[in-house]
Each structure stands twice: as structure tokens, then as C-alpha cells.
């Protein structure tokens, strides 16, 4: 109970709500202004392709640096030390896959969605349906993680301890997100992400300098502080090396390896990341965006390293685990420790903004995939008479996804959000990445190969997750009191990623389909940008 009080003491709910309301108000005004020129599908899905490389790069980092990055990683480092650091490294190195292998070629070949790239030289309807299924699956896992994070944050911030109150706030987050997406489309969403990225990185910078300042700008002293606060001796020293969270058994070591692989291969298969490459006018701008994103994301993760150990040193692992919100409350508690209620309010508002911006990005991606791939091309067979019909369907889909996200977020409230994000990465790395890479680089890839790698990868990943200890069989499992697990690892990537690469290869080999003319067109277009969708002048 003492720890609980420590989390709530000094909190000023009125102040927190005011700061957050100001952010919502400002972004809403911007979203409404952005919506003025938003009419066509290209406006709604890709902001008229009119963002510059740097703008898109900042928006990508805003889209990517989710609540899991900020709250989850800082908390993981505070509690588990070095093992939490792996998340940041995997999340960053992953961008090289996007930069070298995916971003530019994808921008040159597609229009709005991942399905566009696959459908270029394959049978439209089956591959678009498959691409939409995996896009929706990844978006769903990722949305759950963000919404669950909102619940934990609210617990800490407003002192709302009961589940009903938290659920209400999750609903408010969902409704705000729906408004952003419906009114602003991709343009409004992008601006929300840009503002949020600037606030988040600035906030993390201030806190990092503050923490370092307290320890004479000596990282080693910050680490010593964390070691001492954790009880010193061997127990405290464990924070400095790997193995505290994952090192105990052979199985948990394999889990760590599996997680590491999924993190590095997942990013370039995340549909909301892929879709951001379409908001710039050319492939060269896509390249610039990724460079900006890599620099900003890299710097941010260096900050979280200091923040995580700083929270361990100044707040302490006991106070963090005991606080409402648990591991996710490390960064907000550190803010309170440093700058009192005002900084706590500011940082919490930034964290809220983070959740809002990321869920808006996910929702627009999922709705675009459904409207563009499933409605326009699978159901209507590419013949949508009314040009506004597709956007209308996208808006309705966004509403439905918003409702599902609210319900799912309420159910997932209390789960570790970094873990939920890791699951989304496993699906993206297994179902999407092999398919995209084969499609862009392998001449003989075809419809059957794409279907096998998407559906096969998705099925293997989900089956392994359902029968993993993450879902049942241990005290920390999602479903408590039941045990039907037979797969030993929480992270399926180690098995599911090679399996879906193999399935994609096998499926393509066993089918004779090959369109040399279409492949010639796709390859020339992907490398040179001939005929790529241009920016829409307004």
C-alpha cells in the first residue's frame, strides 16, 4: 500500500486533464484544417503524396515510437536492466531492412497498400484478400497493445483504480482516434504524428539531460544508482548484464533469441509503416524519410536507456512494480520524481498523445486495406463506379475498427504492452516480410507462393501464440487457471519466420504461373520509379 501511495502522491488530476485537453484541442484544430483539401482516395489514404521526406520521417518516428517504446522499454530497463535494452536495439536495427530492401521499391510499385505491390503481377483478388487479412491481423495486435497501454497510464495519471473508470477512458481514447481518422484522413493523422513525435522526443530529451545532470553527466553513476536502489550486491549488479529476464533456463534463452529475430524482421512488414512510404512524392523522398526516421528513433532509444536506468535509480524497481500501471509506469514516475506534478502531467500527456497518434495511424492503415483491397478490388472487382464510394467504405471501416479496438483494449487492459507489440512484430515478420521480399526480388514468385507465405505464416504464428505459455499455463499467462500450452516459447518468430519463408518458396515452386511481361514492368518500375503515383497538387 505504501508503494501504491507513492504512485499517486503528488498527482494533480485537474492539471493532467488540462494539459491533455490542450493537446487534444490543438491537434483537433489542425486535423480540421487539414481535412479541407481531403477529398479523393489519394488524399484520404496517402495525404495526396505531398509530404516532404523530412516531414514523413518525423511522422514515421511518431507512428513507430509507440507507447510500448516509451513506457514499455523504459519500464523493462528499469526492472530488468540490460534485457530491456534488447527491445530498443532490435527496433532500431530493423530500420535497415526497411531502408535497404523495402522502402524505395515499395514506393515505386504500389499505390496505397501492401496488397498493391503483391497484386502487381499476381492474381488480384486472392492476393489482395490475403494481404488485407494479414494487415488487419497485425493492426489488431498492435492496436490492442496501444489501447491496453492507455488503460495502465490512466490508472497512474488520474488515480482511476477501478476497471470501469479505466474502460471509460479507453473508450474516450478510441473515440478521439476515430475523429482524427474520419475527419483528417492520412493528412490529419500525419500531422498528429508529427506534433506527437516532436513532443515525445523533446520530452525524453529534457528528462534524459535532467537524469544525467543529477549524476554529474556520468552514465556509470546512473547505473550505480540503479544497482544500489535494486539492493546492491549480485542482485543489483544483475541489471548491468544480460540475462535477468531471459537468462534463467535454456527455454527462456531461446525465447530471447526468438524475440530478437522477430523484432529485427518485423518492422519492414508492419502495414502502418509500409503505408507511410506512400505519403511522399518519390522513392528518393521515401529514402530521405527513412534516414530521418532512423536518426530520430536511434536518438530516442538512447534516451530511453538513460530514462530506464534513471527510473531504476531514482524511483526504484519496487515502487515501479507496486505502482498502478506496473512496469509501464516507470517513465511517468520518473517524471514526477524529477519535476513534480507539472512534469508528470506533461509527460503523461505526451504518452497519451503517443497512444492517440499510433492508434490513428493503425486505424487508417487497416481501413485503407479493407476498403482498397477487399471492397474495391475483391468485392467490386476493381470497378467502383462512384469514386467516393471507396473512401466512404474506408471511413465506415475505421468506425468499426475503432469500436473493436475499444472493446479489445478494455479486455487487454493490464497486459504488458511491450509483449503485445512483440506479438504484432512476430506476425508482421512471418506473414508479411517474406511475401514482400520475394515479391520485390524474386522473378519466379507468384500467386500461390504469396498465398502460402501469408496464410501459412499467419496461421503458424497465431497457432504457436495460442499454444504458448504467454496464453496459458503460467502465473503470468493471459488466461489464468488453464493450461493448454505445448509450444515452449512465448515468441514464435524463431519457428514461424523460417517456416513462412520456406512456404513462400515451396508454394511458388509448385506453381507454374509466371508472367514475364508483368515482371518486366514491375522490375523496371520498382528500380526506376517510372509511372509511380505522383503528388496531388492542391
Amino acid at each position: 500500500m505504501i508503494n501504491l501511495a507513492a504512485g499517486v502522491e503528488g498527482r494533480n488530476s485537474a492539471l493532467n486533464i488540462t494539459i491533455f485537453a490542450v493537446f487534444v484541442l490543438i491537434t483537433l484544430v489542425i486535423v480540421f484544417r487539414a481535412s479541407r483539401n481531403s477529398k479523393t482516395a489519394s488524399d484520404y489514404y496517402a495525404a495526396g503524396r505531398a509530404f516532404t521526406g523530412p516531414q514523413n520521417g518525423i511522422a514515421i518516428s511518431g507512428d513507430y515510437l509507440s507507447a510500448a517504446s516509451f513506457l514499455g522499454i523504459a519500464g523493462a530497463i528499469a526492472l530488468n536492466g540490460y534485457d530491456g535494452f534488447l527491445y530498443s536495439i532490435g527496433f532500431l536495427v530493423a530500420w535497415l531492412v526497411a531502408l535497404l530492401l523495402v522502402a524505395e521499391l515499395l514506393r515505386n510499385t504500389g499505390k496505397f497498400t501492401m496488397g498493391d505491390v503483391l497484386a502487381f503481377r499476381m492474381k488480384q483478388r486472392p492476393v489482395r484478400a490475403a494481404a488485407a487479412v494479414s494487415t488487419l491481423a497485425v493492426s489488431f495486435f498492435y492496436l490492442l497493445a496501444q489501447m491496453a497501454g492507455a488503460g495502465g497510464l490512466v490508472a497512474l495519471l488520474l488515480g482511476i483504480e477501478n476497471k470501469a473508470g479505466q474502460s471509460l477512458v479507453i473508450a474516450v481514447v478510441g473515440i478521439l482516434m476515430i475523429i482524427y481518422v474520419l475527419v483528417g484522413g492520412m493528412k490529419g493523422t500525419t500531422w498528429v504524428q508529427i506534433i506527437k513525435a516532436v513532443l515525445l522526443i523533446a520530452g525524453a530529451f529534457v528528462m534524459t539531460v535532467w537524469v544525467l545532470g543529477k549524476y554529474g553527466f556520468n552514465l556509470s553513476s546512473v547505473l550505480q544508482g540503479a544497482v544500489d536502489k535494486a539492493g546492491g550486491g549480485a542482485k543489483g549488479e544483475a541489471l548491468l548484464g544480460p540475462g535477468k529476464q531471459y537468462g534463467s533456463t535454456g527455454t527462456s534463452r531461446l525465447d530471447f533469441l526468438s524475440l530478437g529475430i522477430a523484432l529485427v524482421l518485423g518492422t519492414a512488414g508492419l502495414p502502418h509503416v509500409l503505408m507511410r512510404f506512400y505519403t511522399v512524392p518519390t522513392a528518393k523522398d521515401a529514402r530521405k524519410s527513412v534516414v530521418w526516421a532512423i536518426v530520430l528513433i536511434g536518438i530516442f532509444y538512447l534516451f530511453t536507456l538513460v530514462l530506464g536506468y534513471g527510473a531504476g535509480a531514482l524511483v526504484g524497481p519496487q515502487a515501479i512494480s507496486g505502482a498502478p500501471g506496473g512496469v509501464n509506469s516507470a517513465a511517468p514516475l520518473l517524471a514526477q520524481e524529477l519535476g513534480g506534478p507539472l512534469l508528470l502531467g506533461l509527460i503523461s500527456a505526451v504518452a497519451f498523445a503517443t497512444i492517440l497518434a499510433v492508434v490513428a495511424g493503425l486505424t487508417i492503415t487497416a481501413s485503407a486495406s479493407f476498403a482498397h483491397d477487399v471492397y474495391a478490388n475483391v468485392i467490386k472487382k476493381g470497378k467502383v463506379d462512384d469514386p467516393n464510394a471507396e473512401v466512404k467504405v474506408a471511413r465506415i471501416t475505421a468506425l468499426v475498427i475503432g469500436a473493436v479496438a475499444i472493446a479489445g483494449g478494455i479486455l487487454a487492459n493490464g497486459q504488458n504492452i511491450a509483449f503485445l507489440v512483440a506479438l504484432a512484430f512476430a506476425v508482421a515478420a512471418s506473414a508479411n516480410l517474406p511475401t514482400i521480399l520475394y515479391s520485390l526480388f524474386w522473378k519466379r514468385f507468384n500467386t500461390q507462393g504469396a498465398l502460402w507465405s501469408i496464410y501459412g505464416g499467419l496461421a503458424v504464428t497465431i497457432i504457436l501464440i495460442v499454444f504458448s505459455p504467454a496464453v496459458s499455463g503460467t502465473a503470468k499467462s493471459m488466461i489464468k487457471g488453464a493450461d493448454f500450452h505445448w509450444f515452449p516459447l512465448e515468441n514464435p518468430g524463431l519457428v514461424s519466420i523460417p517456416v513462412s519463408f520456406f512456404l513462400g518458396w515451396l508454394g511458388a515452386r509448385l506453381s507454374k504461373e509466371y508472367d514475364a511481361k508483368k515482371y518486366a514492368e514491375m522490375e523496371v518500375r520498382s528500380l526506376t520509379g517510372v509511372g509511380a503515383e505522383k503528388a496531388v497538387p492542391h
Partner: protein
Amino acid sequence: MSSAERDVAHEAETEWERVQASPEFAQLRKRLRNFVFPVSAIFLLWYLLFVLLADYAHGFMATKVAGNITVGLIFGLLQFVSTFVITGLYVRYANRRLDPISDKIRGDIEGVVK
């Protein structure tokens, strides 16, 4: 794709194949693949080495180098450095070695098609 665009693409189909078979395009493809494939292999192996060390060489990674700065921490920070360096190298390579050829091919095709 608008219907007008589709017509253009259809008529120009042999044009795509001609460009694809041209030595210029072969050079562009070769330059791209000669950079991105080996570099991807290198950074993925380098990352895998880091993960395996963090996973199976706890003692080595927990060795203190200076103060509380451990070998593991330095390895982790080196991953940041290598990511930034590879990004810089790729941008330089793309600007100098890839963009001029792809710009030229694009200019040629769009000149023919229009």
C-alpha cells in the same frame, strides 16, 4: 491505376521488356543488389552475434570495462553506431551510383511513352 494509364502500360509492354533487357538496366540492378544484399547479410549477422552473446555469454557481456560500463553495453551502443554508419553509406551510394542511372532510364522511358 486509371484506364488511361493502363492503356499506356499495355501498349508499352514490349518497351518494359526491352528496358529490362538493356545493359543499362542490368547495371542498375547489379549495383543495387551488389550493395543491399551483402550489407543486409552483414548487419543481420552482426545483430545476431550481439543477440547470441547477450543470450549465451552473460559473463563476458557483464564484464566491466570502465566504471559500470559493461562489454554488453558497449556492444549494444555499437549496434547504434553501425546502424547510423550503414544508413550514411547507403545514402551516399544511392545518390552517386544508383540515382544517376535510374534517373536516366526513367527519362528515356517517359520520353518514349509520352
